[in-house]
């Protein structure tokens, strides 16, 4: 944490020279650690299989690593450009992995970044004096190598005037112009979105680092798996092939030992999910394949199978705070390479025909079906223990993920410490 403290001191100097004024300390709830909203949207999806799993399967634990990321983004100062007050945000981002050894969790890797986020180019356009006020340190931008920059522990900043992803012309798109600066809410929204993007990018980088060090060990990753596929190039040039599965081999290596755990499901199939909510002696998991759909904080992709699980039906009678019928449902994102894990398919797994996938998964004697069942069993055994969390999270969050988040959150600088950059 001391390196963060050092960087706070450097940022203080920069902001002071840029004529920034400190913002009064106020704790804006949504900026503490933004949580996901509750919303669902139904999308067309094809059911590939549904699998019954014993509620207490005898399988041995499979996952060795548990990956999560947390962040806190707060406006720390404001600058004036053409009489318009523009907020400057500071984001503390932490990603990490815990390792499970003999049923106990222990920290394995952690990376953190302190990033100044503000519309730099828009400010330059509004006031040319800003051209001489380039922030210190490295810029996290569309030029990529973001994970390397994070690991360098340099001072970091990111310009919300422009996108991180490249547009069709190979150039970043424009998000905020000089005229947009007066829309303070939009400036803040872009800063919060940028923090989320950077966090996801750091998570991809961390998973890639784990892949390099422990290629055969399974990772349970908090959140949907589809968004990382958008950010491969920004993480590291090697991962450019993740985007659009341009390099199936790289995507295969990245995805074949990773499962995503989605505790707040926003995207559900248009129909057929009722089977997951049926009560019986077995837990029934319908497996869907969606097209590419992106919601605010959720996404699905055709390269990833979505297994829906009523994770802890035993608790629904005890926990009355159900926000919707599906609030007890968790989704587990299972990349196709995790089921079709065959070196022969390394270069063409993404071309598998949907009918073929469905047929193989329907065939109880197929290797793929057995592998899928095995994966679902090891997911089901993670139902216990129950994490201490909000009512809905108790229904859908896995304990190791909650512990990882707790470990990372405990390292976040407080709102007041972040604002301390200017005190």
């Amino acid at each position: 944490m001391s390196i963060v403290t050092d960087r706070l001191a450097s940022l203080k100097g920069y902001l002071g020279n840029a004529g920034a004024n400190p913002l009064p300390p106020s704790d804006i709830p949504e900026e503490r650690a933004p949580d996901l909203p509750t919303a669902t949207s139904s999308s067309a999806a094809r059911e590939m299989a549904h699998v019954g799993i014993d509620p207490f399967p005898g399988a041995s634990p499979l996952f060795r690593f548990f990956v999560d990321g947390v962040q806190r983004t707060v406006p720390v100062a404001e600058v004036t450009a053409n009489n318009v007050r523009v907020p400057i945000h500071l984001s503390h981002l932490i990603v990490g992995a815990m390792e499970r050894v003999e049923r106990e969790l222990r920290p394995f890797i952690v990376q953190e970044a302190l990033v100044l986020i503000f519309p730099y180019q828009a400010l330059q356009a509004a006031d040319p004096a800003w051209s001489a006020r380039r922030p210190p340190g490295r810029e996290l931008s569309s030029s990529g190598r973001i994970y390397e920059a994070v690991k360098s522990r340099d001072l970091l900043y990111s310009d919300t005037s422009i996108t991180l992803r490249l547009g069709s012309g190979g150039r970043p798109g424009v998000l905020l112009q000089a005229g947009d600066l007066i829309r303070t809410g939009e400036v803040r929204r872009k800063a919060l979105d940028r923090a989320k993007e950077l966090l996801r990018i750091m998570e991809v980088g961390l998973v890639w680092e784990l892949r390099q060090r422990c290629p055969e060990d399974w990772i349970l990753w908090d959140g949907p798996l589809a968004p990382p596929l958008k950010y491969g190039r920004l993480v590291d040039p090697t991962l450019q092939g993740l985007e659009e599965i341009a390099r199936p081999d790289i995507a295969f290596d990245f995805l074949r030992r990773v499962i995503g755990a989605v505790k707040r499901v926003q995207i559900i199939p248009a129909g057929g999910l009722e089977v997951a909510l049926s009560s019986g002696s077995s837990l029934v998991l319908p497996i869907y394949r969606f097209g590419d759909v992106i919601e605010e904080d959720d996404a699905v992709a055709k390269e990833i199978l979505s297994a829906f699980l009523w994770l802890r039906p035993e608790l629904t009678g005890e926990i009355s705070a159900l926000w919707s019928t599906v609030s007890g449902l968790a989704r587990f994102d299972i990349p196709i390479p995790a089921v079709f894990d065959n070196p022969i398919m390394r270069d063409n797994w993404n071309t598998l025909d949907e009918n073929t996938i469905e047929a193989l998964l329907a065939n109880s004697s197929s290797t793929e079906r057995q592998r899928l069942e095995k994966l679902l069993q090891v997911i089901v055994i993670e139902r216990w223990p129950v994490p201490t969390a909000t009512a809905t999270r108790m229904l859908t969050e896995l304990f190791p993920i909650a512990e990882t988040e707790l470990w990372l959150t405990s390292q976040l600088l407080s709102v007041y410490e972040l604002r301390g950059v200017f005190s």
Partner: protein
Amino acid sequence: MAIGRVLITQREPAKPYEFWCWLQNDPSLQVEVGTVLVAEGDNGEKALALVEDMQSTSAALDHLLEFYGSGYGNPNINPPTRPALIRLAKLRVLYREPSTASPPTGRWQVRFAQAADVTLLAQRIPPQYRILVGFLPVGSDQADPASWLPVFAHAQFLLGPEGAHVNITGATGLATKSSYALFLSYAVLAWSAAVGEQTAVVLFNVKRRDFLSLHGLPQDWNTASQWIQQWAQRIGEPALADRVQAMWTQAIAQGVDPIGLQFPVKYFTYQGDPDVSFMQNPQIYSYGFDDLQRGDFEAALFTAAYHPTDPQVILLTAYLDAKLGQGTSFQTMEQDLSRQSLRRVQGNEVQVPGVPGSWMIGVPLALGRRLTGFLSHASHVVERNNPNGRPFTFSALQANGLHVIQLYRLTEAEKRLVVNAVIRELSQGLEQPSRQINRVLVIADELNKYAPSGAMSPMKEQIIDIVARGRDLQLTLIGAQQFASQVDDQVYGNSETKVVGYSDISEVSNPIYKYLGDLRDQVPNLKKGQLILKHPVYPSPLIIWFPTPLHEMRP
């Protein structure tokens, strides 16, 4: 090596003298209530602290989550992830460097205390004033003397003049009050011999043979080791031997060597004591009328339960003024107060032979009945027919020696008489300008009988007077009792050093034990040989150990 860090949270804020720490997740880490730990800051700050309380906790909010978390109440499932168990320890500061009354300023690292840390405690006490009062365990090897670090009391606070007196509380048999009083006696005598003081210890043996056979120590420490081994086997706790041996080894290193120093032991008992064979060359004591003073008579005749009237007190005073030193015996006094001896003056007024003034007839008769009652219960220690007996005298005290006065099996009246007469003799002796002894330590068990809470009695007045003046007289009272709540507040409050052994929770819930803080909860869990010590030099109570006295282990 660090084993934890200081906690500073909204729920557990750090205070100047107490704070919490968490301990690393290692079940083999041997930290328990009473362990001494050190918290160290980045800039050389150091806090030596005692573990006062401990908790194991987890992220689980309550029992519901634990129940649900185990497969909805299924004790047979074995979840793939074991929730982290967090051990917390509440630390009570014993020493702070630099000296300040402010809380830790950061999440300081916490580690086990080492010998060098515990010696910091002794730094508060100049070497010439250090009296060994027990040991703190700092290592995991109980057989290693280095694992038992000495705890010292400050002589000026233990014996005076800065403070004085010690009170020991604990259940009979389990708290080892007498054993500790004896260990403390050895330590004081060793200190006294080392600094050239002339100290005498007077021990009242009130029950069984607690202080008998003190002369029967082993010849040397090799024999002592054999005794210790055999004793541990005999009581069925062979593991105790190493611990006791290690503590005695450490005690010797600190100069407390009861075998080497050969403290002389003298016994004083009454005629007919069936336990006389357990004593070496006992001197028989007894008291005649002329051996006593007014306070002794009052203590013998009057109790909190029997309050004399003012005329009775005046008559007693007048009688003693007239007769003491005149060769009067108790028998004579009994006769003088009998109806046959009284001479009627007028109406119901009578005169007592040889005593000026007249009295309502009921007054001498009542006093006479009280005297007769006392004499009928005091045949062991009172010379009824002779003016003089063989009282215990100050001149009988031997420098740096132990003096056991047998009270066991005496009646309550006899005990009151003897205790009062002895203490009076000691205090008068210490006031003499020319004396062979300049400091006396009195060990008195069942203090609640002599100085009970509530109503006053002559005996209690004497005890209160002694504890009030004792630190100037250099007369130190080491009082002990089962229940401190039954002892007079002044007597208890004037004992600057307090020691608590195993006691029932109903006793320690009394507000007088508030000074123990959270350690109060530990009192019912204290083991034999383990005590809580509160001494003015230390800001917090300590859980200390002491070794079993050697004479108790005689084969």
